[in-house]
């Protein structure tokens, strides 16, 4: 068995407000193998994005890591100096954000913003970096990459901008790509294209992906394994097929049950959307079951 690329062990994140620390992530553990696509699902506020920002070392005050280890290729990222972390960030671990509209600098050409990666991590001069940026745009299948590199973000559509983000993130051929809701802000038609692009490019280059989404459909179509997050805990983890076929945790079942289905209608011709309010409000039930996640995951593996 190969060593995991990313091994998050008992990661705890807390928000420090005044002299009290509020737990945000409670001992989250998961592993991503080299080249694997791993999904994190869960509702807003469940801690998916905090997990990804913690891995990137980009947590902002008042959030900070309160315990655990983040092993990347066997090296604990939490022990690295700022400078060492910078060398890794963008270079070996890269990230795509949700909002392509605001995630790019409006006053700088997209070519220049991609070129920065080559200047930062490969010590290239600006001229060469700009040429490489055009190639990077071509690799994410942007038409007329030469002309597009000179565009400013506002001259591009949302889908194109997200392609620019992908080109930027994959510029240095990272080992791990963290995609935080990469398609949520996009049109449905564009979503599929962007998803396929991420999937194909990462498969080509052997890049592992940590996929974060609240959209179960997106996760199902892209990831080999899935972790379900709820209220700062990883409540269930399994192979995608197994998880969707046989959810073990009550919350996961609720989540899957809440999916509206095409064609399933009641006698009155209407479909009632299911919510999972009752589970959330019943905190006691969750405390009992939330820490069974690791065991359930192991049991679920063939």
């Amino acid at each position: 068995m190969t060593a995991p690329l990313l091994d998050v062990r008992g990661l705890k994140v807390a928000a420090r407000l005044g002299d009290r620390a509020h737990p945000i992530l409670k001992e989250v553990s998961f592993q991503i193998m080299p080249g694997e696509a791993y999904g994190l699902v869960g509702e807003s506020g469940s801690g998916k994005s905090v997990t990804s920002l913690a891995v990137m070392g980009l947590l902002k005050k008042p959030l900070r890591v309160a315990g655990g280890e983040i092993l990347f290729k066997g090296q604990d990222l939490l022990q690295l100096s700022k400078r060492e972390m910078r060398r890794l960030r963008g270079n070996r671990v890269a990230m795509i954000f949700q909002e392509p509209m605001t995630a790019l600098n409006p006053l700088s050409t997209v070519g220049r913003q991609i070129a920065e990666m080559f200047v930062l991590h490969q010590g290239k001069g600006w001229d060469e970096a700009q040429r490489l940026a055009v190639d990077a745009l071509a690799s994410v299948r942007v038409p007329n990459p030469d002309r597009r590199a000179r565009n400013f973000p506002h001259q591009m559509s949302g889908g194109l901008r997200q392609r620019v983000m992908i080109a930027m993130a994959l510029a240095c051929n990272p080992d791990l790509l963290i995609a935080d809701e990469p398609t949520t802000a996009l049109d449905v038609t564009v979503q599929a294209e962007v998803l396929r692009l991420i999937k194909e490019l990462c498969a080509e280059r052997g890049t592992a992906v940590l996929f974060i989404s609240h959209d179960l459909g997106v996760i199902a179509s892209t990831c080999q394994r899935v972790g379900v997050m709820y209220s700062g805990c990883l409540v269930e983890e399994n192979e995608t097929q197994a998880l969707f076929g046989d959810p073990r945790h009550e919350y996961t079942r609720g989540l899957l049950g809440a999916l509206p289905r095409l064609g399933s209608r009641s006698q009155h011709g209407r479909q009632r959307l299911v919510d999972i309010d009752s589970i959330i409000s019943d905190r006691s039930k969750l405390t009992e079951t939330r820490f069974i996640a690791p065991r359930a995951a192991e049991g679920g593996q063939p």
Partner: protein
Amino acid sequence: MLRFALRRNLQIVPTVIVVALLIFVIFSVVPGSFAASLFADGKRAADPQMMARLTQELGLDKPLMERFVTYVTDLARFDLGTSFRTRQPVIDLINDRMWASLQLAIAAMVFAVLVGVPLGFLAALRPGSVLDTVTMIGAVSGLSMPQFWLGLLMMYVFALQLNWLPSFGYGDGSLQNLILPAVTLGVTPLALLARTTRAGVLDVLNADFIRTAHSKGMSEAKVVRWHVARNALVLIVTTVGLQFGSLIGQAVVIEKLFAWPGIGSLLVDSVAIRDIPVVQGTILVIVLWFLIINTAVDLIYAAIDPRIKQE
């Protein structure tokens, strides 16, 4: 870009025309007359016969429409009229004062930008630090301190006690004479700039694309140089533009205090004795100055932000 600049410049013309009309209308209806202010000594009313003679001589007895036509046709030939008091062409009076005013305004603004912008920037990068606290307290004090008091203080310290700089006057127009009035005048825009720069930089630092920049593995210094500076510049340029425009008019107090021969004191003196042609001319020049600064600011915007040219 060239078309944008040209169009923006052409917009000055109609504005000037409208302003000129407004000025004329306002000053032909304000109470008080030059003749009255010249002859009245405060105890007795002025001699009506002498007043009538003077009014006739200055052409003020003609109907409003006729005076208006003369005013506009003269204006079209860049003739701003003749001062009631000195009987000199207004344009000469303004010309004598304009350069001292510009000198003062530019020097004050340069001082404000050179000190205020870096201070605001550093304060924003280390919010809550000693530098931040001191800068912000200084900015509030600078904004709330009366200019004439600050001027007197500067005079007392640097001219009287230390004897480093001349206390007042234009002198031969040397830098020495300029320093004290310019610094005093520059304190308000400096304080304002420090505050807006800080706010602007903090705003940019919270933007999503700064997080993106960090996620690329950029050092703090590079994030600031490559992504923060240019974005913060938009707000800074706005503030500089607004302040610059109003500096010429605002300078009256400083001009009086330091006996600086600027256009602000010319305006105030002329209003006091109802020397209408000078008042009209001076205001027109100040308005023109405002418009030029505004246009310059717009052009700088367009150079900084590619989204503006698109309309």
